């Protein structure tokens, strides 16, 4: 059981609905992602160290985790608001879930909102690296427990 009230699929559908309101307008989409980034609470500076950097991102993205009652809590920060906005979406989908749920999660919202076309191939690769890192944490916690 996860502490999150909605399923991973439901949260992704919520995100898709939110982006639908932007009508595919590129500028509005970028502004919206940046706003999401600015809303994400900042990581404590002590966590913004090289060991927490996600490899494969063009911008700097720091990711930390806590493990409480069988659920993973992700926290992240970045030096750019767009990247921060992107990882905030992943946090929204994956936070407060069990390692198993995260490992099995099929993440479809990114393609559905056409993000690849907005942020370009390099950032899309970075986004894939974020997912990989989050799933890697889930695998590690699942092995530990």
């Amino acid at each position: 059981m996860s502490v999150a009230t909605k399923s991973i699929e439901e949260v992704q559908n919520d995100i898709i609905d939110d982006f639908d309101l932007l009508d595919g307008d590129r500028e509005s989409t970028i502004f919206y992602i940046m706003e999401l980034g600015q809303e994400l609470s900042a990581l404590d500076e002590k966590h913004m160290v090289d060991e927490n950097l996600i490899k494969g991102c063009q911008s700097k993205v720091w990711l930390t985790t806590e493990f409480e009652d069988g659920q993973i809590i992700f926290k992240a920060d970045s030096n750019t608001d767009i990247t921060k906005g992107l990882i905030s979406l992943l946090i929204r989908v994956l936070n407060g879930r069990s390692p198993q749920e995260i490992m099995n999660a099929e993440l479809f919202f990114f393609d559905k909102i056409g993000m690849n076309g907005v942020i370009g191939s390099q950032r899309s690769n970075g986004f894939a690296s974020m997912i990989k890192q989050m799933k890697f944490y889930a695998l590690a916690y699942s092995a530990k427990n």
Partner: protein
Amino acid sequence: MIDIEQLRSEFPILATEVNGHPLTYFDNGATNQKPQSVIDALSEYYKGYNSNVHRGAHSLADKATQAFEQTRELLQQFVNAPKSEQIIFTKGTTEGINLVANTYGRANIQAGDEIIVTTMEHHSNIVPWQMIAQEKGATVRNIPISDEGEIIFEEFEKMLSDKVKIVSVVHASNALGTVNPVEKIIEKAHEIGAVVLVDGAQSAAHLPIDVQALDCDFFVTSAHKMFGPTGMGFLYGKEEILNDMPPFMGGGEMIKEVSFDGTTFNTLPYKFEAGTPNIADTVAYAKAVEFINRYGKENIAAREKELLDYATKKLIEEVPTAKIIGTSSNKVSVLSFIIDNIHNYDIGMMLDARGIAVRTGHHCTQPLMARYGLEGTVRASFSVYNTFEEIDKFIEALKRIVKMFG
């Protein structure tokens, strides 16, 4: 006076849209756009006279060779080189520098020697020298710069000694726009017997280049930053130095005679042009040079200065949280800046949404960024075909970004 509408109409890409907006291309420092004559030359070559140069005893080969060698002559005139043989075709500036580092450098650098560059060099004018320095036990030193982005000449003078064998300096900085006093640098370096390479990647299309008046030993540049094709450029060198240099790459074209007992090398320029060259792009490069000559480099430079002055003034007046990086009074048309509280990548993405192309990041000048304590900047670099209206649009977009996120 240049008829800008007429000039713009020569560039098909300028009539296109990006993200639903007319393209505003301010990334000319990275590469500039190509006129129709250059684009046509590429397909005309492949359609009409594709053939290998310098060897075939047939008419097509002769036609290709003539067109190929004509580019060399045009470039000779373009930089006022004494002889066309002193123009060596390369893949671009990076290959030119690597060629000199691996031939002249390897033959002349010894343990304890020094190579001088500036703090504002592109990585392509740092790394090849570091590689040869490491191999030989030599040192690469860099001339410090002021906050305005100008080299501190007195510091350069202090660095000069008989250990210095090569001074390799950028003519115009890609990240700051600063035009370096290369004449003075060359004069001082020659006093201590060092040779000087001038990196002309950002200057060849924008500043008058006279290699004899400059008295530089080497000059390198890229075609794609002067309206020509990518993967193309040239190295100019003083004849006696080029003759003394060992070849760079071995292969066809660069030899006189080959046997298993030994090989003798061809004369200039072929000694340095191993293998089948990039014939199509070389032929098209001529059209880029002709384009510049047709409008006149002085006219082009004057127009670009007007654009730079206009954009600089507007940025200072209308975007007060912007800070310009590189404030020398002698610049090519590069406007590099940061804006408080907004990352350069984010600014680049938001401008792109309005069809405005700029470069963001470290511009392949990480030591320079470190000098300013920055990760990167936003860089708008203007070319003759840009307009004041485009700059207005750019400033309006920046104002909107600052209003929302600054």
